[in-house]
């Protein structure tokens, strides 16, 4: 269903990606693809290369060699701005928000709507606040948090939610979350998992990295496992396998999940 369709290329395809940090080879020829509206879980032990892989996709580090395609078109991603331009948005633990600015202003940073003639440069704060309130409700943190609240006054989970809301609103095609549930409370974690489900429903794809395999099992369509800079399994379906089986693949005790 994902690989067979000829007239419908994958949203993202990476071919033979190699990334060297000096003498350390963090990625040794990775092939990976993500389909449209697909939620992919990326698992692997510490040092497997997960973060490096998504840094490559998000423009944070350059690749040593390999090719990246977006909807079948080869692209070069040299900066975060390039990645965002190709519809790839990464949400880091310490998310890319300006703590001094309000939620609404962060949502619209760099894409500010004007009110009145453009030469006055006046922000349409009414519209920004209305859209922000709406988004906050969608991602489930509306409770008494006005959109004019500065990001600095929000909890870690709320900040993640704002970043995710921003990616969803501006129609990023692929939203990448690298360990978004670390350091979050139980309720906040459930919130983040809900946003990921919501992302699919609103037509986005997602790469979700987490240590907690149970969290991954709850939301993803497909699991990819990395070990020592390589993809060792890329078609594990949560419905057809167990957490224990996936753990054995991650640690290298099994090469594959038994079919």
């Amino acid at each position: 269903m994902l690989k067979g369709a000829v007239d419908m290329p994958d949203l993202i395809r990476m071919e033979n990606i190699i990334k060297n940090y000096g003498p350390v080879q963090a990625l040794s020829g990775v092939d990976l693809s993500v389909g449209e509206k697909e939620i992919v879980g990326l698992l692997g032990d510490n040092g497997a290369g997960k973060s490096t892989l998504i840094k490559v996709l998000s423009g944070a580090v350059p690749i040593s060699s390999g090719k990246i395609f977006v909807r079948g078109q080869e692209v070069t991603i040299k900066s975060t701005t390039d990645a965002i331009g190709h519809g790839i948005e990464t949400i880091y633990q310490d998310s890319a928000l300006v703590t001094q600015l309000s939620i609404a202003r962060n949502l619209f940073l760099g894409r500010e709507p004007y009110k009145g003639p453009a030469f006055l440069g006046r922000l349409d704060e009414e519209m920004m606040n209305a859209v922000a309130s709406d988004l906050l409700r969608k991602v489930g943190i509306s409770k008494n948090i006005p959109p004019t609240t500065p990001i600095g006054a929000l909890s870690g989970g709320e900040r993640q939610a704002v970043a995710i809301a921003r990616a969803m609103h501006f129609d990023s095609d692929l939203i990448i979350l690298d360990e978004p549930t670390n350091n979050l409370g139980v309720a906040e974690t459930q919130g983040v998992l809900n946003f990921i489900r919501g992302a699919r429903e609103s037509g986005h794809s997602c790469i979700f990295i987490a240590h907690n395999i149970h969290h991954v099992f709850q939301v993803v369509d497909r699991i990819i496992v990395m070990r020592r800079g390589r993809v060792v399994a890329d078609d594990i379906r949560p419905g057809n396998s167990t957490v224990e089986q996936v753990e054995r693949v991650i640690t290298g005790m099994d090469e594959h999940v038994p079919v």
Partner: protein
Amino acid sequence: MNKRTHLSNLIARPEFGPLILLVLVIVVFGTLNPNFLSPLNISNTLTFTVELGLIALAMTMLMTSGEFDLSVGSVFGFTPVLMWTMVNSAGLPLELGFIIAMVAAMGIGLFSGLFVTKLKIPSFLVTLGMLLVVRGVALVVTDGFPQRTWDSQDHWLSNLLVGDFRLGGFRIYASLFWFVGIALLMHYVLTKTKAGNWIQAAGGNPDAARARGVLVDRTKVWLFILSSSMAALAGVISSIRTSAANPNSGSGYELEVIAMVVIGGTVLTGGRGSIIGTVLGVLILRVMRNGIVLVGVPGLAYNIFIGAIILGMMALHSSLERRHVERGR
């Protein structure tokens, strides 16, 4: 919203502390010496206050973007010297001399801005270097002597910049209107416009801002140009008003201006700035200087008070900041 939340919002604002301090200072000096509130004294105090204030307004914008400019005092001294040299020696009309001097000042800002953003050298070092270079040029050009300034009182440009008139017992200079107008404009830009949003984002989290397509470097370069231009304008205004162009004037203004800005609640590290706070900070420091002299404290002790005010205000701002963050969690 009810009255109580309005009141507590007002108190939580970073401008509230400076406002109270300003009122306090005026009441104390007004009580100690009745002359303090005389029209003559108020006019005299305001005259120079607005000249320094112009620099402080631009510095507020620059500091909100996370940079600052130590060369403003030198530019304040250099620009009128350059203008009068061209008028005196090259026989240029005043308008042309003014335009060329302003363009030169903008060039200084552009240069500092490019140095800071392209070579990634901290603005402390770049503008410290600029402070020395610009002051040095002013001294070399003039051999260290003040420039002759013909009496420009009736020139239309002088009238536009520093023309004065009497209102009751007050003597009011046009520069007061420039200060008020520019303060209103900058407050609007900083709080209501896209440019203001970019300035705050550039200072708050430049990497995040860049990732969203904010032109961080270009924003900062423009603010360096603005800061230099305002210092130049203030220098020219001051020089026409006093009929003097001294290559040494303006030394030390950079620190006084930065003190005014931080007292008003703008953060040295960027991300948050307040034009209202700066206007209060400017008034506090100038009123203090004037009042201390009037009540007979030796002028030499002035710095003790200023230093104490800066430290006290910083403690206040940081405790407000902490409370704000804790309440949010």
